[in-house]
C-alpha cells in the first residue's frame, strides 16, 4: 500500500480503488516498456522491483484495472 499512498495525499478518506487504478496505469506502461526492451513479459518480481511496489500491491492493482468502471467514475467525480 506504500506505493499507492505515495500517489495521493491520504487524509484517511481516499478510496483504495482510486490509488489502485493509478497504479494499474503505471504497471501497464512499465510492462509495455519491458516487452519492448526484452521481448518477453516481465515476471512479477521484476515488475515489483521496477516500480518499487510489493507483490500485494501488484496483485491488487492488476485486478483493479478490470473492475467495473462505475466504481472509479464515482471516485473521480
Amino acid at each position, binding site marked *: 500500500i506504500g506505493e499507492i499512498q505515495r500517489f495521493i495525499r491520504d487524509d484517511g478518506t481516499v478510496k483504495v480503488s482510486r490509488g489502485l487504478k493509478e497504479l494499474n496505469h503505471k504497471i501497464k506502461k512499465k510492462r509495455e516498456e519491458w516487452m519492448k526492451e526484452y521481448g518477453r*513479459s516481465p515476471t512479477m518480481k521484476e515488475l515489483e522491483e521496477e516500480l518499487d511496489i510489493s*507483490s500485494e500491491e501488484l496483485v491488487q492493482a492488476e485486478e483493479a484495472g478490470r473492475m467495473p468502471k462505475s466504481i472509479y467514475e464515482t471516485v473521480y467525480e
Partner: protein
Amino acid sequence: MKNRMTLTFDSRSENESLARVTVSGFMAPLDPTMEEMMDVKTVVSEAVTNAIIHGYDSEDGKDIELHCAYENDELVIVISDNGSGIEDVEMAKEPLYTSKPELERSGMGFTIMENFMDHVLVTSSPGNGTRVELRKKMVAKDRVCH
C-alpha cells in the same frame, strides 16, 4: 517449494474477482511472468463463471470451491461446484458449444482453458456437480536465465 490453499465462496458474480485475486496472491511465490499470471486468472474466471452461470443457473447462496496447490514449478487448480453437472463433457468441450446461447455465451470457456493450461481434466455428474482440474508448469525461471 510447496504450498496449498482452498477458498470456498458464494456463487455471486463479485466473487469471480475474489477468486482471481486469491489465485494470483497464491502463485506469487512462484514468480510467474505477468503473462502466466494473466493466463491463470483468465482460466479461473472461465471456470468460476461456468460454475455460477451453468452449475447454479446464476442463483447465489451456493458454494464454489477453488483449490490451489503447487509443488516446485507445477501449479494445480481445482474449481468445483455442486450444481447441475454436465451430461456430455466431450460435447461441452467442443469449441463454440454453449447450452446458453440466450446469454450470449461464446462457448469458448473450455477451449480457452485447454489453450492456456498444460492439462485440463473435467469430471462431472449430472445433478451432483462439476470438477475442473487445471495444471500448468511455470517456466518463468528458465526464461529469465537467457
